[in-house]
């Protein structure tokens, strides 16, 4: 079981056969996600290896992982929201144990994780794991 927030997303996706519906939902999740303040759109928080611009601001307190993210591409923004559901509220020590490809696979979005995709989801997952490991 992943976080309740991710399980809720997984449940919604379970009823979607069509890629169009899936994408629509991903885009809606991105739209619903709070925007990252422009002050945090700095080079240190930018995730390299993304074709669009992606920022990731880690927010760790009391050993619990959380982050804010943003992208100028809407699908990527939605995927950030999915990652947020997957990682937010997880104890920092357990972040590395989350199998992101398997979890995204459950909702049919694992195609975005392959090494050669330049949408940045893989780079974001790597950044999340690195930040959590260093905390």
């Amino acid at each position, binding site marked *: 079981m992943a976080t309740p927030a991710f399980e809720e997303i997984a449940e919604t996706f379970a009823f979607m056969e069509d890629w*169009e519906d899936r*994408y629509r939902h991903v*885009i809606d999740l991105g739209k619903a996600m709070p925007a990252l303040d422009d002050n945090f759109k700095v080079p240190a928080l930018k995730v390299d290896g993304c074709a669009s611009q992606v920022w990731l601001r880690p927010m760790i307190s009391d050993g619990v992982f959380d982050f804010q993210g943003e992208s100028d*591409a*809407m699908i*990527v923004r939605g995927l950030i929201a999915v990652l947020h559901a997957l990682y937010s509220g997880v104890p920092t020590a357990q972040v590395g144990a989350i199998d992101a490809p398997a979890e995204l696979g459950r909702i049919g979005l694992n195609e975005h994780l392959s090494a050669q995709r330049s*949408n940045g989801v893989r780079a974001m997952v790597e950044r999340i794991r690195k930040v959590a490991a260093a905390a």
Partner: protein
Amino acid sequence: MLDVSKLRADFPILSRQVNNKPLIYLDNGASAQKPQVVIDAVTQAYSHEYANVHRGLHYLSNLATDKYEAVRGIIAKFLNAGAESEIVFTSGATEGINLISYAWAAPRLRAGDEIILSIMEHHANIVPWHFLRERQGVVLKWVETDANGDLDPEAVLAAISPRTKLIAVTHMSNVLGTVVDVKKICHGAREKGVPVLIDGSQAAVHQPVDVQDIGCDFYAITGHKLYGPSGSGAMYIRRDRQLQMQPFLGGGDMIREVSRDAVLYNDPPMKFEAGTPGIVQQIGLGVALDYLMDLGMANIASQERVLRDYAQSRLQGLNWLHVQGQSATKGAIFSFSMDGAAHAHDISTVLDKRGIAVRAGTHCAMPLMQYLGVGATCRASFAMYNTTEEVDSLISALELCHELFN
């Protein structure tokens, strides 16, 4: 007119599916698909006719050399060069333009000398000249396009000063589709004694090219866009310019004699072809060019004009879509962005789901994108095997994007 359904049958990849949809390949500006005759030629060469060229005296080496060298004549015919020896084999336009930068321009240009470029050049026709700016103080002078994306030949000629040593300009923009009147530029430049290099990477795919009629000094083509193998290509270098060039890469094939204290170079064009070349790639390119000449470049041009007109009118019907470049000379290359929040990568991701391949990004033309004031765009670039039905599919997918991202 060409029989497009017959033409499509020559390209096996066009009948495959992508994401459970029939492939609609609109990324031809990046690289074109290969007809079966080219695939067969590559297989045949490796299966039965392969050895190194120019070196051995054995049967296979002679056979491979004959097949490989015959391509020089095919390219000369394709470009209507004055002589086969004016065709230098390259791995593509990038290597060809770098060759001219290193072998012709670098030894001749001094600090303060000028190279004129258009703002719509591909990085391959920019960065080799930046090398000369960085390393020896050469000045790059940029000529901008007008609001329609046209490049006025008079503006290029007006930029010539006594320090101008070269004009390097594209024949067809890979972003705007604009076809440049290179003949006018070459004739005007010649009157002022300024050589002209033309990047024909896009243009040679879509229309007949006659380098003698154009009157250029250098003309670059790249095989992979011409339905040939990647790693194949050629540079037309007029004889008098060849005689002004130093060698670029040193190694086998480009020398006649080497001793401890001296080297004697081979004659052009081999003087500029060091090392074992892309033997099979060039053989494949020869077959691709024969295939194109059989179809007729003028026929291909008229076929694609119909496609261009249809795509243009359908795209213009989408009032939330912004196409870059409205030149009357425009080929079937459409770079666009969309009203609303859609990023180029969003659009290309959704199009891909519909089996439609386009490019998203800055198209290796960042100075042009900066000039146009746009970030990443999507580019649909058509080829002779594309159909008006595929245009309809593109439009329908774009309408979906507009709905999703609005």
